[in-house]
């Protein structure tokens, strides 16, 4: 198997919107690649061409120009999808199926059957935290639960590439955190992940490299550390520092003009997400203790 999981080469996609309408270029000469085993984030505003790029990669759309491949195989071939697990944005599955039936159905589509498929489905439902709702129909699932079932079906045939389109859209912070952990877990298992999200902070936590698209073009691309680090600034965090020590630091910087400028000093902020998780986890722990007693 190729060392490069995904190759997008000079991809252009033009839509013909019918008689009397101008041609619409959704993606224009986009190129990037994703190495096997890495987590690659594709970000950009709505209408920037991310979903179109993913659809071409998955063979749902044909490229106007350029080539796309998955592990060295032309991604327009159905066979290439053997290596891919896909979670669409706001996934809708057959509402008449239960969680377990959904995972089994998608497993069967991948040629799986028998005990192996059942065991795999059970394991994935456990992994995604959906064990308890496995026998409930999808019609009664929340958005977050659908997203997690979506992840389970995407992983059912043990793909080498996981394509996630806005995996945390509409999911609460705890659910988002769980999905983030699952992405990291996939990475640890050697699965390549290609993910789009509007929640940039989350992408920052999981991605090795990112590509930023705007108006159908790739405007910036590279390792996340290179893209977000501010080369001419240094940050250090002290714990339990006394006011005297802080004053000494200020004085030291001021005494050496030309050696550097102190831009800011103060208490670091936690993120709203971390605070939310801390508070809700504490509340759940208290509730559990109360129930026990």
């Amino acid at each position, binding site marked *: 198997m190729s060392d490069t999981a995904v190759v997008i080469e000079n991809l252009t996609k033009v839509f013909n919107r019918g008689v009397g309408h101008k041609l619409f270029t959704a993606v224009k000469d986009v190129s990037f690649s994703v190495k096997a085993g890495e987590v690659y984030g594709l970000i950009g505003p709505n209408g920037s061409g991310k979903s179109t790029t993913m659809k071409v990669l998955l063979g*749902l759309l044909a490229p106007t120009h350029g080539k796309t491949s998955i592990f060295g195989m032309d991604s327009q071939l*159905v066979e290439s999808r053997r290596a891919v697990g896909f979670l*669409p944005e706001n996934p809708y599955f057959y509402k008449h199926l239960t969680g377990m039936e959904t995972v089994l159905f998608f497993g*069967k589509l991948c040629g799986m059957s028998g005990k192996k498929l059942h065991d795999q489905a059970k394991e994935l439902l456990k992994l995604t935290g959906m064990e308890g709702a496995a026998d409930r129909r999808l019609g009664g699932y929340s958005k977050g639960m659908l997203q997690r079932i979506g992840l389970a079906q995407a992983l059912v045939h043990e793909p080498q590439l996981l394509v996630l389109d806005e995996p945390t859209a509409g999911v609460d912070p705890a659910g988002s955190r769980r999905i983030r952990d699952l992405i990291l877990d996939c990475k640890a298992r050697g699965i390549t992940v290609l993910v789009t999200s509007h929640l940039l902070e989350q992408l920052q936590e999981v991605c090795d490299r990112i590509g930023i698209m705007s108006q159908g073009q790739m405007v910036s691309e590279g390792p996340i550390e290179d893209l977000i680090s501010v080369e001419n600034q240094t940050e250090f965090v002290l714990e339990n520092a006394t006011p005297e020590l802080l004053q000494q630091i200020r004085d030291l910087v001021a005494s050496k003009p030309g050696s550097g400028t102190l831009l800011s000093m103060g208490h670091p902020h936690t993120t709203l997400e971390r605070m939310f998780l801390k508070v809700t986890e504490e509340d759940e722990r208290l509730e559990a203790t109360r129930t026990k007693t």
Partner: protein
Amino acid sequence: MSSSYKSFSPSRIWALTMSTVTQLLRMRILVFLLVISVVVVGASFAFPTFNAAQQLKMLKDVCFGLEQLFAYVIAMVATALLLPKDVEDRTLYTILAKPVPRLDYLLGKLFGVLIVIGGGLVLLDIMLSGVLWIKQGYVLEDTLAGLHMQLGGTPPPEAIAAATADVEKQGLTWALHVGVLAIFLKASVLVSLTLLISCIATSTLFSVITSFCFFIMGHGETLFREYFFKGGTAWWQYLAAAVLAIFCPDLSLFDVVDAVTEGRAVLLTDALHMTGIGLLYTGGYMVVAYLLFVEKEL
């Protein structure tokens, strides 16, 4: 990866077929079947003032009418819902993002609808056969009793045989099952045609209306053919007749229901010919549907 890829996989098609069957059954099709079954049973008690042959013919007319209504409505309306709904719900993305060839998807939908229609028709056929057999027994008993009274004693064997033959001709015969087969074959053609239309349609309503138009035109397809071969009219009329003659199925080939409800026999060769034509139409429409669907951008 867990399994090797097969470009044609019966188990994958079966998974899609069963999913379609479940999807259709959730559309409350069983309730529709139940209502028809109640009407079938009710019809067996109706028309008490008619003579023996008329009673049996009316029962068959009502039942075959309902069977046709069931088969053709499901064939056009339910099929038209399947593909656009999967596109709208984006379920199709998730399915086709798996190693699923588009042909397998279409075949799964086709077989799913055919299983539901076929299953429903078999159930209704069993019910009609049962009701007709019981009704036939009562009618024959009444006819012989009437003959007995009319002649004031035991009727001669020839008269009994003639009366029995008359009732049996209108009763349960093999030709009735051929009539059900004809309904199924016509429904199969409609399903494949509706799937084809769904591949280019942007809405369910368009698919239903277009299929219904083809259904109506299909019963007069021979007129388009005659018009085409006669020629001598404006070129656009000639062209329209040619297009309709080519694309429209000749549904009148499956019209044996009137004959079987009148008690006429259907030859085995005619039944086989009709089956062959049905398979050809269904196969042909599915090939065109696949060629359109494989190029469809989602």
